[in-house]
């Protein structure tokens, strides 16, 4: 019988509230050291469509009318200020500003995609473009926080943390929630915070993709692997003597196992991040640079059972083109297009796309009106994201913005709805994944969120 599990059974049940009480039951009731492992896999509420999420975060906020939401009326009314185009955003904007890019019909579905995303356009039949997205606040920090954590302040756990808490990880030798970003996006670590969930659910941020440096202390710089094995054998021996005198205390046993896990992680995690092991052909398909390597790493991670991988396009807020959007968006899309399409194709080839949900998008969109003549301001009224893979109907669009692409008007999807839908695809009822904290059962979607059923396969 367990005496002092890392979470006591009672504590686990009281923490998990009603919903996850069921969800986590199998793991909690098993009286083994594995039960003490907060990352042990747990069954979902219902049959899941997807097991992994890859979130390709275009931080800074790409413009919908220049990427996935073509608006011919912008060309027609270019330079004018028809009614309905003076919505409040962060800064003052002027008259309508046509997209500098051409849109092409793509795939069997004929969905129009901007010329700056030709390769993603070729994958469009696997993609569902949500054109009626909206969010709350047209500033980066609250926008990023809402998209990652479901709240505009840094006081809630991130979606990746919630998923890890709800489902555990399939691979105990790897971190279960990995965030790839060179440097840091604006706001930074709060975007992958566990907040009030236990620290084990925190996202593992990796700025440098050098496999020897990806995880803190992953490498011993002083001992060979053989010597370290000898040292660990000695440590195990001492720990077992200690445990024997304490009649099988679970928490002591859990730590002995955890030490072994750490030893294995040293090689396994290092391998997982080593894109150098990929065939040259595959590497060429993804292209060069951090973002391309990060996309390829994302595939290698989900392949190994990592639950959530979040890839930020770059440090800071790269898509934030307040000026010279033509040049800015064209340059960024050049990198993003090839790597993103390669990831989709690669996942499809290896059969992983069926169980991996890919989300592409920013924290908000941009105004169809011009800022300073060549740029666009933040826009929370309407924007586009797209989903592909696990349980998503491909080759479709969902919802619409108004005729200029300013404001979502039809089949609107709020960020909370997007979260509810992602959780649904992962087999989780977003109203039942709760954590008791400060006298309340908290949820990723707070008191909001409706699953967008129309896009489910």
């Amino acid at each position: 019988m367990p005496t002092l599990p890392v979470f006591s059974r009672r504590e686990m049940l009281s923490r998990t509230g009603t919903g996850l009480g069921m969800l986590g039951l199998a793991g909690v009731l098993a009286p083994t050291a594995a039960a003490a492992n907060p990352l042990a896999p747990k069954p979902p509420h219902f049959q899941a469509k997807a097991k992994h999420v890859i979130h390709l975060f275009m931080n800074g906020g790409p413009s919908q009318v220049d990427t996935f939401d073509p608006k011919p009326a912008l060309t027609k009314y270019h330079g004018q200020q028809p009614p309905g185009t003076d919505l409040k955003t962060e800064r003052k904007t002027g008259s309508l500003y046509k997209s500098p890019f051409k849109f092409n019909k793509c795939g069997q579905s004929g969905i129009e995609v901007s010329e700056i995303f030709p390769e993603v356009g070729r994958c469009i039949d696997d993609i569902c473009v949500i054109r009626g997205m909206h969010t709350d606040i047209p500033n980066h920090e609250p926008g990023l926080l809402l998209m990652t954590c479901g709240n505009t302040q840094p006081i809630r756990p991130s979606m990746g943390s919630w998923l890890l808490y709800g489902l555990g990880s399939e691979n105990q030798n790897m971190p279960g929630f990995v965030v790839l970003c060179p440097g840091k996006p604006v706001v930074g670590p709060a975007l992958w915070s566990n907040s009030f969930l236990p620290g084990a659910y925190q996202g593992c941020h990796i700025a440098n993709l050098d496999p020897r440096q990806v995880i803190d202390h992953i490498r011993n710089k002083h001992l060979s692997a053989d010597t370290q094995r000898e040292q660990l054998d000695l440590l195990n021996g001492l720990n077992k003597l200690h445990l024997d005198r304490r009649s099988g205390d679970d928490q002591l046993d859990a730590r002995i196992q955890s030490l072994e896990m750490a030893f294995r992680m040293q090689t396994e995690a290092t391998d997982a991040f080593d894109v150098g092991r990929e065939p040259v052909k595959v590497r060429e398909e993804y292209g060069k640079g951090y973002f391309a390597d990060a996309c390829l790493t994302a595939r290698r991670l989900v392949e190994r059972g990592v639950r959530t991988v979040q890839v930020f396009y770059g440090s800071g807020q790269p898509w934030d083109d307040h000026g010279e959007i033509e040049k800015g968006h064209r340059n960024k899309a050049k990198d993003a297009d090839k790597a993103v399409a390669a990831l989709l194709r690669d996942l499809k080839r290896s059969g992983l796309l069926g169980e991996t949900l890919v989300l592409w998008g920013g924290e908000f969109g941009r105004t169809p009106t011009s800022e300073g003549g060549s740029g666009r301001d933040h826009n929370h009224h309407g924007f586009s994201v797209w989903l592909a893979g696990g349980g998503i109907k491909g080759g479709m669009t969902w919802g619409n913005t108004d005729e200029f692409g300013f404001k979502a008007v039809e089949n609107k999807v709020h960020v909370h709805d997007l979260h509810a839908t992602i959780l649904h695809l992962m087999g989780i009822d977003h109203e039942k994944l709760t954590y008791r904290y400060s006298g309340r059962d908290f949820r990723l979607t707070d008191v909001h969120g409706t699953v967008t059923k129309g896009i489910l396969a």
Partner: protein
Amino acid sequence: MPSLREPLTGILLLVLCASLSAADDARPAEFFESKIRPVLIEQCYKCHSEASVKAGKLRGGLKLDTRAGWQSGGDSGPAIIASKPDESPLLKSLRYDGDVQMPPGGKLPAAVIADFEKWIRDGAFDPRHGEALAKTGIDLEKGRQFWSLQPPKPHAVPERASVSQAIDALVQAKWGEKGLISSQLAEKRTLVRRFTFDLIGLPPTPQEVDAFVNDTSADATTKLIDRLLASPAYGERWGRYWLDVARYAGDQAHTFGTKPKANAYLYRDWVIKAFNDDMPYDRFVRLQVAGDLVPDAGDLFTKLAGLGLMGLGADYYKNTAREQAIAEELDDRVDTLTRGFLGLTVACARCHDHKFDPIPTEDYYAIAGIYNGTNLTTAPLVPPAEVNAFERARQAVKAAEGRADTFLSDAGKIAVQSATSLTAKYLLAAREVRLSKAAAKALAKQRGLDRYFLDRWVKFLDPANAAKAPAAFKDWFALKATAQATEVRAAAESIQTKLAAIQIPDAGGPKKVKKNGNGPSGDAIVKAMFQDKDAPFYVSPPEVERHFLDGDAGQKLAAMRAEIEIAKKAVPATPLAAHVLAGSGRGMNVYIRGNPATKGGAVPKGFLRVLGGSDRRSADYTRLDLANAIASPENPLTNRVIVNRVWAWHFGRGIVNTPSNFGALGERPSHPELLDYLTVEFVKNGSSLKWLHRQILASKTYQLAAREDAANDAKDAANQFLWRGSRKRLDVEAWRDSLLFVSGTLDAKTGGPAFDLKDADATRRTVYARVSRHELDGLLRIFDFLDANVTADKRNVTTVPQQQLFALNSEFMVNQAKAFAGRVERLGTTDAERIAAAYGLAYNRPPGRREVEMAEQFLKLPKKPGDNLTRWQQYAQALLASNEFLYVD
């Protein structure tokens, strides 16, 4: 106002009846049944009906399944105003016009919306009877019956029994009820470790262990406890517990618009000192809430530094959603205050009346008002005279610097003025230099020009600059190389004339130009001639010094510089200032559903009504009033909550196992009489935390062995009823500090600015490390340190491989292993002696036979090529990384 509404409905029905008799349209009943009711059922009932109330899914407090439901309406008032479609919020939301857009899944077809408009315009006929949502008033009197809101009851103990004996009696009574058998007391060697780790967060030395084990006097334990409580390390250990509740950190989570709080450590040091000084708890509360207003607070540090509790509070990113962000900041204050001191989740009442505890929404805003409009600022910890002296000295430096700047600027201006009157000459000379490659130096001398300005003119007149030069130079740049001298001279003179009309700005940069002084075009030419870095008549202060100061002037400048240095030396050290919250706020309106955009009724400032706060609500209510209401001995929560926290920090679980929630959703006390008894005695004994530690630690309950027992385990595996001691994992602070202590590397320096844990060579106690809300240090994070953005009651204890990677591979661990091996080497001459010394330091016991064998076997292994640690260092690391080091029996 049902009394007004009822007759109104009556009148409407009369009107409807009149129109019915006309029979010129679809009958209202038929219209309602065919066009309205089906839509309501289909689209609205899921979230707005009696059924949704029962399912807990009612939204916005609005029911649409009865007429009374929409009449009395939801959180923001009536949903439909009969006959007035344009004033009916329901229609507005159906039209998707505004913030509330219904149904959420998508706008209804235009025809359906038109039906609703017609229905409302025609009087909103609705035959559905039934109740509106009952507005649940909170019954405060009933609420006060809840256990934690009742005054703590004294407990009669036998006359000569000590408090510790009373604790044991109350705990043992529960064993009887639950059929649990007591464990034995722990051995003295185990106890001295337990006491020492528990009170100061470090292990005892071998000498201290021996002294205690060999002390057979009756008061050996009391002496040990007193010694530990008198150590400054006690405050470092116990102050840190409070810092979790205070969500202490030195920065903010956001990237934009936040400044690091450079002196955050003052609050940390204040808390540590308060624990070491055994500050009475009620004073500890008062000073943190309102030290600035407490009349007898004492010295400035004591009075002000505790205000860091709120002074270091959340400072959110504002920009576009300012009101919302401020509302969240108020939430942070109310939440930290009420959970921290009262164990009540008052912030739950921000959007609606508390669902489980007797806290109406108005109460949240009564407290929030006390912080509404207050400032996060700094307050000097030195007397005003010192602050003034510092400010004066800084002004003196500025003034001296200003004099030198003005002197240089004036000298520059004079040089520029005289050069400007020779503009035409400069132009002609520069043209010659450009065209004939004449030597500038000679030419300048010959024409009485300054070489400095001539060089700049030559550069300026580069034809490549033609496009960006001011309009006045259009003709000049158009001049051909072969142009007639008269033509050239005319062009040059024309430019000089134009420049003569310009008021020459002060030297040294564009910031000094008066806007609109010369109109827009004038500005352009002023910039191009005098202010741009490549302007021909621009001269920077260092250039003035280099080119335009004669010997006299140079000496004057040197004297001014000397004055600056003297003034700088006279500036005293920057006065230390604490981060505080200033002001007592102003009453505010309820935000309906927590939304600052929808304001409800005004609420005067004040305290929770269930705790007697109704009488004193007013605009004059201050933070001191709030502090007194919390610290009052009449308050049934404050003392219970801290007694329970202290108990929980000793035992690993509280008598109430939700230390920051004593409400209905919190756990009930496992030993209610014990909690009440200790609370009453605590207040009687001066609200002294050290007193409380002594009573708890001297009890047998605390001294039980941490030994499992199968029969007891089956009944109470979690040891809720304290039938044995609890084996505790050291938290990250105690673990890291103990590693340093045992290795002999701990730097015992107390207080002062924080250090960075990323520095593997840092050897101060962990309580002095930087704590960040933006990016929590990796070591703290992986070892269950809490997110400092919110107040916390207890840490999770998780076991994950990243922790073990730190133990196996980090530079910090390797550093300690090397130091520990070195220390042990000096304590013996043979391996056996050294192994024994290592066990004495790390585990406070001699090694067992098997342990010695394993060690000797390992130490005999040959060193492998490429390994940078000796076998002894590897062994030392294993001892430090072991379970026995991490878990205390």
